């Protein structure tokens, strides 16, 4: 049973780059703006600009291009499907190719490529966030970004605390699960034969001790927190504060500018894809 070896939470790819060093809060904000800009983009010029921006960010992050491409693999056929559907369903521009009832218009090709590109950019830029930011940093960032919702009754601090503890203990529980699996195998437990029901049943000797050990850990941890006078979010300080600097403000400003450009292009209709036919 090697299914637990090499399991990591998230997709974080540790490197030393400008993008890795950016403040998680800014990165989350920038992703939001990028996704909105992507859906605002109206024509080939806008898409090329967004693609260039994404390429620049990927280059700055030093993440190997292979890894980004690997992330696109699962949706490869959706991208292909999008391309084909838009190509055949759009009836604008001039006819490029015709065969009995089927015809391809120039508008269809332009639109198909645009939509395919949108999916590629959407996936690669969102995966870039989790590739360059650790889950713990992301949690800290989310805590800050969600804190305005405290007024609506969302306990942002408790939420982040819970997530941080959980993320911290996943590797511990993985080790625990590994031990339990080995111990039960040594007693002759068999996890790999029988039908579906038999296999589901064979999990009980693993899951029950795992639950019990998690309960016990929760108890110990609560005791430890009590002993150190944990009293919730008010006035609590952090060991590692999120720090924002020039880099972050620069990144965010560029992102906002790109978005405003997309908006202008869309409103003026200068870059509408029909205008390119």
């Amino acid at each position: 049973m090697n299914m637990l070896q090499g399991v990591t939470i998230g997709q974080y790819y540790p490197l030393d780059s400008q993008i890795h060093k950016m403040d998680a809060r800014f990165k989350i904000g920038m992703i939001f703006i990028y996704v909105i800009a992507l859906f605002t983009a109206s024509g080939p010029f806008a898409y090329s600009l967004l693609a260039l921006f994404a390429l620049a960010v990927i280059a700055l992050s030093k993440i190997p291009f292979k890894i980004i491409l690997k992330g696109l693999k699962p949706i490869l056929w959706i991208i292909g499907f999008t391309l084909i559907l838009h190509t055949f369903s759009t009836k604008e521009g001039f006819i490029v190719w015709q065969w009995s009832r089927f015809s391809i218009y120039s508008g269809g090709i332009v639109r198909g490529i645009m939509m395919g590109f949108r999916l590629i950019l959407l996936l690669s830029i969102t995966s870039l966030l989790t590739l360059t930011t650790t889950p713990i940093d992301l949690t800290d960032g989310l805590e800050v970004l969600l804190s305005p919702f405290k007024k609506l009754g969302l306990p942002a601090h408790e939420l982040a605390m819970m997530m941080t503890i959980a993320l911290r203990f996943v590797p511990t529980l993985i080790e625990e699960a590994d031990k339990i699996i080995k111990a039960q195998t040594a007693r002759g437990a068999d996890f790999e034969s029988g039908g579906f029901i038999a296999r589901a049943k064979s999990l009980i000797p693993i899951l029950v001790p795992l639950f019990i050990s998690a309960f016990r850990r929760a108890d110990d941890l609560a005791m430890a927190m009590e002993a150190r006078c944990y009293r919730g979010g008010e006035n609590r300080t952090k060991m590692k504060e999120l720090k924002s600097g020039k880099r972050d403000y620069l990144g965010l400003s560029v992102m906002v500018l790109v978005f405003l450009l997309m908006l202008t292009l869309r409103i003026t209709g200068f870059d509408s894809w029909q205008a390119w036919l």
Partner: protein
Amino acid sequence: MQKQVAFLTQSAMMLALATLLSFFAVFHLPNGGSVTLGSMIPLLFVAYKFDWKRSLLVAFAYSLIQMISGFYAPPTQNLLSFIAVVLLDYVIAFGALGLAGLFYRTLLKKLPQSVSMVTSGVMTYAIRFICHFFSGILIWSFYAPAGQPVWLYSLVYNGSYMALEALISAIFLGLAGPRLLNRFTAM
């Protein structure tokens, strides 16, 4: 012991367990969704022990953990359906856990504990399925060729893995659920 701290650590540990179990995927489907070894069981335990507000908070924390450990951007055609699909697949789908506790406590008045646990668990899976079903329709309505019922595709696609997962969880909850839960609530 302070109640709030106990709630925090207990639900955090259940979150860790749920995240761990979600790694044990029996198989992954090509467009998102996988059969895991009952990764919702620890969250159901939280729902059975704490009130709906706290279970909702834990469910929200779980959806955030799922997102930050690998966000799968849905291939939608416009921003509105993008937001709708993200909300449906990540936030609302797990928000069903807020209801799990209500179901459980209502059923417990009339039925034995193990039956209540299994039934409310399966009902929670059903609600989660409805969320994925609608998000599937939103994504695929564009792709399905004319005349092909999108809902049927979404039903089969999402139903297949959700049913298997519900079955695994039901077996576990039925056989080991009550004893574990009593231990958990006694803490």
